[in-house]
């Protein structure tokens, strides 16, 4: 049981109008590197937000459970939430430029939550920034976030996440919104991090080439559901879901977004009807047939490879 540091089972979330997440199950092995991929609007970030208790006020978890390090993460409250969840998860959020308070110096934001004394915390922050290839940590520490470049701020966010020596690091789109050069550097930083002993990683990314280099287990999400899961080789080597195939064919391209159609499959991720039993992808699927409309069985393909599609694709 405790070989899994994070274990999400049957998670459902909905707002007042519709289902946003339907029966999402995924896990991160202790020391493992799990990635969630899919277009924008597939529910990747929503899943994370359920874990971190940061869902929008009108969204609620309606079913399922989340276990983190053996504890029921959904039931945590107040000081226990802070100690048992937030202090044990390093989270690098999606919107890097707005995760830092604009009126507080970086040094303060890097140290104020640390249980270490101020001086020790500052030494640790300096060392961390150095390890993230920042040449002049002193200058960065005494700056306000607005005085730093996007790449610098991303590193500061990583340093915030790493300050706690948390066993699980969560990175939500760590390389989006960065230019090619900086993205390359940040990717290398993550690759370096993954070689550290005992650190588990949950990565959310559009960027499949990055996922291929870093993850060992992959979940593909579509319209609020997991549609395929397995080891990196299983999912990308023997993709079984038409959606995964479409994504994989795009891996040369850097990013996927909702407004741009996938190459061979038109349309976009549907917002409505996620709770319906029919396959949400069928309207865009080149293999769609009549029986897709009641085909939601999750099929085991061998190993740890599962797919939510009724077709036997070669």
């Amino acid at each position, binding site marked *: 049981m405790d070989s899994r540091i994070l274990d999400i089972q049957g998670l459902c979330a909905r707002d007042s109008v519709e289902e946003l997440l339907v029966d999402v199950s995924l896990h991160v092995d202790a020391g493992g590197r799990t990635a969630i991929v899919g277009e924008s609007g597939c529910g990747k970030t929503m899943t994370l937000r359920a874990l971190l208790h940061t869902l929008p006020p009108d969204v609620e978890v309606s079913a399922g459970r989340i276990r983190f390090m053996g504890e029921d993460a959904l039931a945590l409250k107040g000081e226990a939430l802070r100690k048992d969840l937030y202090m044990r998860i390093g*989270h690098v959020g999606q*919107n890097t430029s*707005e995760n830092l308070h*604009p*009126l*507080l110096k970086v040094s303060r934001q890097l140290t104020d*939550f640390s249980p270490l004394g101020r001086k020790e915390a500052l030494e640790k922050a300096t060392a961390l920034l150095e390890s993230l290839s920042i040449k002049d940590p002193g200058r960065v520490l005494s700056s306000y976030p607005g005085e730093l470049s996007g790449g610098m701020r991303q590193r500061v966010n990583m340093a915030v996440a790493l300050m706690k020596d948390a066993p699980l690091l969560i990175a939500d789109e760590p390389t989006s919104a960065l230019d090619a050069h900086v993205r390359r550097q940040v990717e290398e930083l993550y690759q370096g991090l993954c070689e550290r002993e005992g650190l588990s990683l949950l990565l959310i990314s559009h960027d499949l080439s990055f996922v291929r280099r870093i993850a060992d287990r992959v979940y593909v999400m579509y319209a609020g559901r997991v549609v395929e899961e397995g080891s990196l080789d299983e999912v990308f080597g023997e993709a079984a879901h038409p959606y995964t195939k479409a994504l994989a064919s795009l891996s040369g391209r850097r990013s996927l977004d909702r407004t741009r159609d996938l190459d061979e499959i038109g349309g976009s991720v549907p917002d409505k009807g996620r709770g319906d039993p029919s396959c949400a992808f069928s309207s865009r699927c080149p293999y769609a047939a009549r029986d897709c409309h009641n085909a939601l069985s999750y099929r085991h393909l061998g190993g740890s490879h599962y797919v939510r599609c009724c077709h036997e694709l070669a």
Partner: protein
Amino acid sequence: MFRQLLRRILAAFIVMFLVSLATFAALEVVPGNAAIVSLGTEGNVEQLAALEAQLGLDRPLGERLFDYYSGLIRFDWGTSSYYGQPVWTLISQRLAVTFPLALASVLLALLIAITLGTVAAVRKGGVVDIISRSLVQLASAMPSFWLSLLLLVLFSSVLRLVPMGGYVSPAEDFGAYLNSIVLPLSVLVVGETGPLLRLVRSSMLEAIGEDWYTAAQVKGLRKGRVIVSYALRSALTAPLTSAGTQLAKLLGGTAIVESVFALPGMGRLFLTAVEMRDLQLVQGIVIFVSFFVVLMNLVTDIVLRLVNPALEPDGGGL
């Protein structure tokens, strides 16, 4: 920081110069002058000419303007025709009554507004939010003279806890001083808390919606510190600015409360000056209050910059 401060101070001086010039010009344009006012309807032309000569009103404009400014700088703001005392003496006496009252009411209102506004925003829709919003509605619906009378009836007539009115200087008897100002202070606080509370609540709600608010919690900072050192830091700009302006306004604007409670303050002095057409005194009070507004803006600005050194040179809604 230092250069910005110098620029601010310079700008403040320019505003003060323009205000005093405008005051001078206004009194110059108004028909009648101090001599006509003090003679009333009984005087004749010879008496008027004599008095004008005595007051220096017959001299050329440029000369009088020069005198006006050199007087301003030396706090020689002329003599009140009604009271027969120097204007500056009158103002400083009345200020001793009004300023502590105004300052205390703004500080108390700010304290209440920050506390309740923060709780109301953090627990939006909760008990504190609902009750404080209803109270704000109630307070803004009550005219201050009516509330004053209500308090007087309750605490003076019925409960006999405080005197009916009048003022005791704190140097004379501090306990009696507190008794004489507790009701007017309450009325002022009730009036000022509402708008400040609304400001605190709305800017706190804005801060809570920011990404860094959630990020600070997720990184493991205690909730109390996220609220105080992160959210309040951003949310206080507007309420502090408003409190500074409020304080300056109160110096000239507590006339109603002062009248009901028979306090010898600035507001009543101003009323008397206008009623008695005491032009010198009106001029003095207008200049004083506007100088004070400029000064308060400067002070608020400096305080905000001390709290938030990273504010943009001309940002912060000032």
